[in-house]
């Protein structure tokens, strides 16, 4: 059970710049991503633009999350009490290993060897499927995209649409070759029409739903005052899992708690419009403990820490825990749009992943991710709960730089220190400017500089750089406005 497997951070994925390079070389991936993110961006803008109080809703969503995070202990205790009162059982898991142990134990106790799963970031984060497999239990993903990823032995590359990196032709091939291995094979003459592919998935999963005795889900939110848990979905696989089996096990990050049922009025408006760009997703299921004669007879809620309290302890980084997993930030990110999700090497890709992954995993893990952003700010604008992702990125960059201080400084750190020295006084800057101008004259041809060696090689491979002018602005000012030459003024 302790064999190494994927968790928040995936094994064997290089640092972002290298992983991105191979992703960028995949032209089919680039085309799939461009089409998909372009489509969803337009839908989101239309859906959010429809509400003239969208900014007020965002402000309320951000404030509710802030309230929760600042008083998380109290809300967790209240949630536990409410779930117990409703007839559910609550488990507390400090980390992935403990959560996996709890879930495996619960499934084993039912005597079942098969579980159906609703798409859940939390169970991906802890590598639950692998842990269950090690205990001889097979977990069947029932969300279409998760099924695609599972059949392909692949990794998810998007929070909402985990198979966004796959085009329809690839999916058809995958269904034809692999569906039979795990149950009902794909129908003969399967086309690559998404409707036909969805139908194949429907037929493949139908028996599994009807047979299932145990389901594992995540949760989009949990209301502390009532103990109500909610799952937001589109396909109906969630309803199947939440309704047909006898036992339901829900694994939920501790940050998903909301103060009250009434607060759903904010999040049920923010989430679908930000996520799929719909006014409302097709299905939202909410349950408050087990209900006699309707759905599972036993309900277990597993509350997962797994790095969340460490994240909570940073007053700046804490806001990343407000994330409602809508994935709007991925869809608007210029970096994500080009590289896709795999380059981030984490269950949580894109801008939110770049701030969440290093915090959940601790310093030193995923250290290239906070730098995988142009800081363009599109993610912050799109975020329905106003997580200032650029602020957290820059904050984590500083933590990363500070962690490297005291050891042998890297060339970058030396350059930064040198630059800070030059920029620390107008005299030193002016001297440097004269040196730059001289170097520029040596390197430049017809006013611009072409290819350069060293750290500038990759920059200059595709970009010319203008030759530095012979006279800086400050030198010109002195000459024209103060009547002194630059050399004199420097003294």
């Amino acid at each position, binding site marked *: 059970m302790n064999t190494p497997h994927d968790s928040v951070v995936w094994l064997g994925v290089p640092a972002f710049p290298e992983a991105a390079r191979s992703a960028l070389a995949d032209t089919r991936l680039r085309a799939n991503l461009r089409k998909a993110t372009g489509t969803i961006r337009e839908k989101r803008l239309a859906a959010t633009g429809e509400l*003239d109080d969208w900014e007020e809703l965002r402000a309320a969503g951000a404030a509710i999350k802030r309230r929760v995070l*600042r008083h998380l202990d109290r809300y967790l205790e209240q949630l536990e009490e409410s779930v117990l009162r409703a007839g559910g059982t609550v488990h507390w898991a400090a980390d992935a290993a403990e959560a996996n142990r709890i879930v495996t134990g619960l499934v084993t106790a039912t005597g079942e060897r098969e579980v159906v799963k609703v798409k859940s970031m939390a169970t991906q984060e802890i590598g639950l499927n692998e842990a269950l497999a090690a205990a001889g239990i097979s977990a069947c993903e029932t969300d279409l995209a998760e099924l695609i990823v599972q059949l392909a032995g692949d990794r998810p590359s998007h929070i909402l649409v985990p198979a966004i990196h*796959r*085009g329809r032709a690839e999916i058809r091939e995958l269904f034809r070759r692999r569906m039979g291995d795990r149950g009902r094979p794909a129908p003969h003459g399967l086309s690559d029409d998404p409707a036909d592919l969805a139908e194949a998935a429907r037929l493949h999963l139908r028996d599994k739903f*009807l047979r299932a005795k145990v389901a594992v889900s995540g949760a989009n939110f949990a209301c502390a005052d009532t103990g109500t848990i909610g799952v937001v979905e*589109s396909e109906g696989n969630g309803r199947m899992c939440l309704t047909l089996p006898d036992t339901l096990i829900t694994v939920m990050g501790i940050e998903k708690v909301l103060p009250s049922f*009434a607060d759903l009025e904010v999040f049920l408006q923010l989430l679908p419009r930000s996520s799929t760009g719909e006014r*409302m997703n097709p299905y939202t299921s909410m349950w408050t403990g087990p209900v006699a004669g*309707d759905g599972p007879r036993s309900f277990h809620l597993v509350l997962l820490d797994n790095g969340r309290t460490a994240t*909570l302890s940073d007053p700046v980084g804490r806001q990343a825990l407000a994330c409602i997993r809508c994935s709007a930030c991925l869809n608007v990110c210029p970096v994500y749009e080009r590289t896709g999700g795999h380059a981030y090497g984490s269950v949580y890709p894109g801008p939110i992943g770049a701030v969440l992954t290093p915090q959940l995993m601790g310093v030193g893990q995923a250290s290239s991710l906070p730098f995988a952003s142009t800081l363009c700010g599109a993610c912050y604008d799109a975020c329905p709960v106003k997580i200032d992702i650029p602020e957290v990125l820059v904050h984590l960059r500083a933590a990363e730089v500070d962690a490297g201080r005291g050891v042998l400084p890297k060339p970058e750190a030396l350059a930064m220190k040198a630059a800070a020295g030059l920029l620390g006084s107008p005299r030193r800057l002016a001297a440097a400017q004269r040196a730059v101008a001289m170097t520029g004259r040596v390197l430049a041809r017809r006013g611009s500089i072409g290819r350069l060696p060293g750290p500038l090689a990759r920059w200059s491979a595709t970009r010319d750089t203008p030759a530095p002018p012979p006279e800086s602005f400050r030198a010109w000012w002195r000459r024209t406005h103060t009547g002194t030459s630059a050399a004199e003024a420097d003294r």
Partner: protein
Amino acid sequence: MSGGRSAMLRRVRAALADVPADERPDDVPVPRTYRRSHAGEDVVGLFADRLADYGAHVSRTSDPATAIAAAVTRRSVGSLIVPDGLPIGWLRPGPWRVLRDDPPLPVAALDGASGVLSTAVAGIAVTGTLVLDAGPGQGRRALTLLPDYHLCVVPAARIVGDVPEVLARLAPDAPLTFVSGPSATSDIELDRVEGVHGPRVLEVIIVDDGKEPPA
């Protein structure tokens, strides 16, 4: 287990050392300046339009029995699940077999049924959403999930403008299902496909009679 619980709560409290000890949750302000509703005057008309946007079949009538019979006939429904508590007289006798969930139907029977007729406890106009709470005329959740055709008949009086209004009138101790159109997926190239695991056809009949029907 309780050891894990207290250790986790301890870690949460330690992480919140910067929060003043005397701060209460209500001290963190939540601006509630957003609208209670984005719907205009014609709530029922909006509800119908928005549901139709999702690809649901929507019609309005003041004669539900005739509209239901016509819909079931048009679909050539062979067997129809009818939950307890549906208003008397909504379903006329016809060439369809009525399946009652008493005693509870096995899953295979639910899966084999050609349709289900239910009502909804509420409708949300702005989002085109039906709300089911397993109450009278809706039955347990599986009834409206497994058949491929869901015919939902909603009295116009139960339709509210928007999400905040509907939540204020729901009791969360019942299992709640919000249905907005037929099941759908956008998992392949973000192309929306209607009809996956939930009912592939959603038909909604709005009953334009201000009065609640007798159960």
